[in-house]
């Protein structure tokens, strides 16, 4: 349909163009209106929503870690505190020439090593440019002073003070206090992630672990305006964190130190308990380790050294060490005998140096060859006569023995405020059948009656049972916490928990045993002669010698030649003063006979410092 008339064609063309242009004008206006409508929708009807979202975008809440509560002993001696540690930090964004800055810092502070520089470069790669990167940790105070005077020359480099846990007593109380360390993946699962948002350290063992909830405190927050990369632009509001509670322990740092020193060089443990409320005055395990090493992150080499050391310094012998109580069990067995009326004070036996069950050829030997002769209860405890207790055990039977020992808390957790504790063992026929698959023999009962065989107890259990003995059966749950002060400075006393008491039909029995235990140290033939008789205070005690391996009398003659690892453990339990008992003690020394000497040093320290208190 080609038009032959160019004029008409031109006219129709122009008309068409005008029409189409009008369509385009309409289209442009409609599209613009559409945009304006969309704009109105976003900025009027959706304004509230987007305004909120915009605010949320720029506001971020950063947590502030609370300061961990300090730990003091009963006399306010600091056991765990937070000390500032100075570290050199660099904000890479603010440093113009990193290479020369690092070199200049190295000349200024010669303690900076190439390792520090290398480590810095590695950390730097994983950190945002505007965030500080630690460069040199643990600056000495002198170095801090040197750097401070030159700081103007180092833009972007600054000293950062950080509170780190420190334990002034070091090795002395490490097992009982425990230590803090960096939170690991397992712990992360079990903590309140909100409250620990800013926290890097958590109690790993000991008091630090048991009272983690109290020591940690409550996290604080600050509302900050941030940009898209999380950089803080300014702080808008702040909610201060609540510091962790200050813990006051029942421990006496002086006594703890003395006990540690007395045991030093040996392997063993000591526990001192205030018999009137179960508070623990000293709880020592030797050898020990420096808990401060763990706070900063222990090196692989140091850790391997601790783990592989044959004397096991990481092992808490006071609550995890399981030992045969040996003769220290005898006062409790004697109480069972009196209570069950299988013996009286005057029941006597003759000790030829051995005991033989009727119809059995095996002889159970007394520790003294040739025996002690005629035995009554008091002398049997004084000289620790095994034969007497073989007789007694045989008459009592295992269930009566077990019953009495369970009442005194053996074979169960003492529920001390430490999570590492283990329960020990009081054997019985059912246990033997289940674990060993064999029947209980009377012979098992006999060796249980002298504290050997399968029976196992911790030093803390022994001390606690001794405390109960001194209090005529009144039993307290041993505890380390005396008082805690919350962040409002309000003190809360720890109320001692009384356990179900040991009840005897005749109160006289208690005095009989106490009397016998007194003669252990007083009597010339008493086994506690190493303790020494000339004390300012009256003592009731019992010694014990735990065999590491069974040896015949003849072998014992060659004692000197036997390897130290096979030497007997020595044990010592005591309470004092006898008239109005205050403290009970249990000491265990592995492969070494000095438990009573060590107990003497500890008890002397206690009564000496008491004397000072009275005079001053």
């Amino acid at each position, binding site marked *: 349909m080609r038009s032959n008339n160019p004029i008409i064609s031109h006219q*129709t063309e122009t008309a068409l163009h005008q029409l189409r242009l009008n369509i385009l004008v309409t289209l442009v206006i409609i599209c613009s209106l559409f945009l304006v409508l969309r704009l109105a929708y976003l900025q009027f009807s959706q*304004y509230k929503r987007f305004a909120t979202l915009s605010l949320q975008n720029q506001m971020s809440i950063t947590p502030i870690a609370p300061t961990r509560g300090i730990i003091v002993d009963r006399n306010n001696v600091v056991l765990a505190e937070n000390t500032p540690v100075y570290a050199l930090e660099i904000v890479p964004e603010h440093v113009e020439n990193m290479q020369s800055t690092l070199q200049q810092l190295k000349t200024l502070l010669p303690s900076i090593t190439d390792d520090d520089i290398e480590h810095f470069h590695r950390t730097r790669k994983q950190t945002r440019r505007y965030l500080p990167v630690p460069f040199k940790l643990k600056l000495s105070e002198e170095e801090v002073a040197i750097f401070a005077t030159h700081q103007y020359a180092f833009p972007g480099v600054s000293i950062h003070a950080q509170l780190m846990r420190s334990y002034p007593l070091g090795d002395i109380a490490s097992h009982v206090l425990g230590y803090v360390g960096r939170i690991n993946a397992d712990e992360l699962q079990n903590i309140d992630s909100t409250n620990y948002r800013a926290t890097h350290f958590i109690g790993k063992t000991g008091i630090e672990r048991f009272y983690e909830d109290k020591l940690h405190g409550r996290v604080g927050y600050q509302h900050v305006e941030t940009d898209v990369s999380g950089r803080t632009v300014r702080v808008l509001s702040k909610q201060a964190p609540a510091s962790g509670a200050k813990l006051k322990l029942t421990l006496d740092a002086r006594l703890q130190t003395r006990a540690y020193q007395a045991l030093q060089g040996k392997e063993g443990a000591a526990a001192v308990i205030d018999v009137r409320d179960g508070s623990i005055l000293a709880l020592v395990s030797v050898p020990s380790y420096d808990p401060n090493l763990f706070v900063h992150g222990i090196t692989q080499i140091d850790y391997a050294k601790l783990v592989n050391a044959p004397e096991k310094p990481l092992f808490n012998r006071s609550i995890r060490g399981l030992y045969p109580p040996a003769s220290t069990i005898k006062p409790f067995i004697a109480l069972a005998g009196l209570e069950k009326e299988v013996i009286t004070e005057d029941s006597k036996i003759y000790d030829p140096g051995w005991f033989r069950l009727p119809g059995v050829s095996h002889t159970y030997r007394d520790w003294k060859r040739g025996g002690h002769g005629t035995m009554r209860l008091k002398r049997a405890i004084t000289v620790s006569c095994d034969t007497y207790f073989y007789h007694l055990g045989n008459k009592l039977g295992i269930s009566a023995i077990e019953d009495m020992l369970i009442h005194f808390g053996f074979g169960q957790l003492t529920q001390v405020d430490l999570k590492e504790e283990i329960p020990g063992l009081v054997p019985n026929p059912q246990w033997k059948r289940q674990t060993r698959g064999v029947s209980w023999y009377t012979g098992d009962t006999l060796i249980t009656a002298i504290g050997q065989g399968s029976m196992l107890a911790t030093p803390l259990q022994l001390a606690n049972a001794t405390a109960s003995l001194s209090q005529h059966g009144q039993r307290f749950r041993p505890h380390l916490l005396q008082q805690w002060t919350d962040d409002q400075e309000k003190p809360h006393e720890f109320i001692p928990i009384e356990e179900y008491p040991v009840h005897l039909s005749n109160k006289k029995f208690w005095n009989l045993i106490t009397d016998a235990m007194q003669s252990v140290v007083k009597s010339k033939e008493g086994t506690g002669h190493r303790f020494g008789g000339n004390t300012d205070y009256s003592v009731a005690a019992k010694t014990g010698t735990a065999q590491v391996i069974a040896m015949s009398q003849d072998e014992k003659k060659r004692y000197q030649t036997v390897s130290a690892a096979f030497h007997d453990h020595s044990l010592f339990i005591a309470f004092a003063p006898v008239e109005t008992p205050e403290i009970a003690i249990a000491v265990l020394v592995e492969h070494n006979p000095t438990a009573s000497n060590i107990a003497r040093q500890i008890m002397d320290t206690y009564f000496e410092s008491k004397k000072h208190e009275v005079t001053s």
Partner: protein
Amino acid sequence: MNHANTQPMYRLTRRALHIDWPLFGLLLLLATLGLCILYSASNASLSMIFRQTMRLTLAFSVMFALSFIPPHKYKYASPGLYVLGLILLIAVMVMGKIGKGAQRWLDLGFFRFQPSEIMKLAVPMMTAWYLDKKSLPIDFKSLFIAVLIIFIPTLIIARQPDLGTAIMVASGGVFVVFLAGIAMRTVWWLASGLAILAPFFWNLMHDYQKQRILTLINPERDPLGSGYHIIQSKIAIGSGGTFGKGWLSGSQAHLNFLPEHATDFIYSVAGEEFGFIGAASLIFLFLCVSLRCLYIAKNTQTSYTRLLAAGLSMSFFLSAFVNMGMVMGILPVVGVPLPLISYGGTAMVTFLAGFGIMMSISSHRILFNAL
């Protein structure tokens, strides 16, 4: 206009400088506002403002220069410019194959430019040149050739891949074809044909291009990935409210939540800081520029200039529309800058070159009348 024509001063400047004053005034206003918004969007970066001002100066100079050339010279130059552009496009494509990855730039050592930018002008010019010769109504053969003229460069650019520029290039030509008088029936046919072919194009698209379209439908499906731009942009605009947060006070832009806030997403900054009042005013300004250009198209006498003017006007309007629609979340995110406002040089020079041609068309009209 008639009133304006009577003023001797106006006539003088128009003849001496070939300036369409209303258009020039609007463009200057937009450019000035653009600098204000950019000052805030760039976090008060004076160096960015300086560079943008330099570009604007260059672009406006190009505009003035091109306005002197009479329209018939453009007409003669159309095929040559188109072929040159096509050769450069192919050159870039080949170099891109060698150099791997997206290649849009032609590096001449001292000067880098995108051949696709030439096509923004060359395609409407060539289409107008071709269809101007054909009388009405346009037969299918002519239509087919016109479509080839438009879509050969478009497809090359789309494969670069630069979907935004491809759309702009195509739109310039498509509106010329529309104006040249293809039957409305054919328009509907083509529209429905495109709808049917849509799934085929979907398959041709790059994954990230598909992502953008899916994201448009539901930005929250990937709030930190491809949806992030749209979500943050909508937050910026929406939180501006009626009057905005105030100049230099847009938290979304200044705290860097808003991506590309100096370039493609600069309109969000305007929406956040100046609110509905400011953002709607910008839309109004773009509308005014577009209408002024269409007015020029309406008043020009020759078919070629009319077609070209309409094509350039629509290309400009569509650029603004796609950009604003994109930042407001009603169109997919394609890299189309907001004319005269977004930071960056190449596109700006092209737009003002287009306005230079517009002014040539507008001012030389009088000259033809006089002859």
